[in-house]
């Protein structure tokens, strides 16, 4: 069974972002989606630490330590970009002004619940950052993650077992095996990676899948 690698996952997701959208990309894998949106397709990337209109990674020697993203990596500002303070940055997020947020996750449930900030109720040092604001506040939430954990457990589940980030928030999931919409009826498969069969996908997934196409 062939699967999408992380670069292919990022490119697949990026292809679904139309010009004109305001988008927040979560820390880690989602951040790489920006590399696959060409500058001439004007998508405006927001970072919760107050940057609207992030550009590409700076060239060597051009890094500015005052200009970072939420993952604390140095970034650039493209022409037309602006800076805001944290409360205004989260007004952008919480006031439903972002067209899209892409987050990583530990689990997504078929009812759209998402768990991405703590792996147990007794996590030694929990840290939520902006995840709950983004999940509750963006117009649409997509999740980008591996389909299963390293030890092979499905991350698409009937109900989340880990502490929730938000309830009923996820609209679409991009994994290394498939793209799936979260519908009233549960996960609905939009597309599968080349060579992945329906049976193999269902076998790798705890939640029941539907295949409308």
């Amino acid at each position, binding site marked *: 069974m062939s699967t999408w690698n992380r670069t292919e996952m990022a490119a697949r997701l990026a292809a679904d972002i139309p010009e004109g959208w305001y988008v927040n990309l979560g820390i880690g894998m989602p951040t790489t989606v920006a590399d696959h949106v060409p500058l001439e397709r004007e998508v405006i990337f927001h970072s919760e630490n107050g940057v609207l209109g992030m550009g590409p990674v700076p060239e060597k020697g051009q890094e500015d330590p*005052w200009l970072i993203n939420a993952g604390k990596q140095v970034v650039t500002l493209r022409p037309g970009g602006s800076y805001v303070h944290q409360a205004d940055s989260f007004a952008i997020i919480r006031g439903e002004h972002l067209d899209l947020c892409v987050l990583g996750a530990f689990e997504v449930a078929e009812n759209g619940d998402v768990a991405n900030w703590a792996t147990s109720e007794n996590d030694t040092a929990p*840290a939520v950052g902006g995840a709950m604001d983004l999940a509750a506040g963006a117009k649409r939430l997509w999740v980008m993650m591996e389909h299963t954990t390293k030890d092979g457990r499905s991350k698409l589940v009937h109900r989340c077992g880990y502490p929730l980030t938000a309830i009923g928030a996820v609209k679409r999931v991009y994994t290394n095996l498939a793209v799936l919409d979260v519908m009233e009826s549960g996960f609905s498969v939009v597309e599968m990676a080349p060579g992945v069969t329906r049976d193999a996908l269902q076998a790798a997934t705890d939640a029941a899948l539907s295949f409308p196409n």
Partner: protein
Amino acid sequence: MIDKIVRSMADALDGIKDGSVVLLGGFGAVGQPDWLLDGLIELGAKDLTVVANNAGTGRVGLARLMDLGRVRRIVCSFPRSAGSVVFEELYKAGKLELEIVPQGTLAERMRAAGAGVGAFFTPTSVGTKLAAGKEVREIGGKLQVLEYALHGDVALVEAWQADRWGNLTYNKSGRNFNAVMATAAKLTVVQAHHIVPLGTLDPEAIVTPGIFVNRVIEAPKPGEAA
């Protein structure tokens, strides 16, 4: 003549008492008023509540303040990060109280404090354990959680430029929590990289007007002894 510029750290931090609630600007290291933080360490105030997005890294700055046992309680959104060793040690040992707040709720609670708003409802954290025990109401067809304003006794802020009235600009993503914290404390103390003459800052470009600022001290230039 109004002159909020102070010349010594003692004058900058005068009046910060044991038990104070300290709002500390910065997102990670960017925009964090490190020099004022060193002054606070030197001052010796203890039993502090610190409100900051992160809980320090290494053994300097905020991490050192905690390591010295001066912080009783920390309110933040993302305490755990690469190098947050002091936080993790103290938290595991039960020597530090932690209140985790979603980052936007944290910012908004301080905006509310600065704007005289006592509390607000927000959809963020509905149905999660961070909403446990909090009042939830359906407003506009959405479940929302009640959150209270978060006031500081003192705010420590890093600005880029300041004038003697306390008008401030910031540098790029260094603005972050600084501008909202400046509004939310009884005493706002600023370390500025550049002190400029009154009237030279473009009124359209001033981010924090001086009404929110009590004291300004010029930070030492890189390589300069403090």
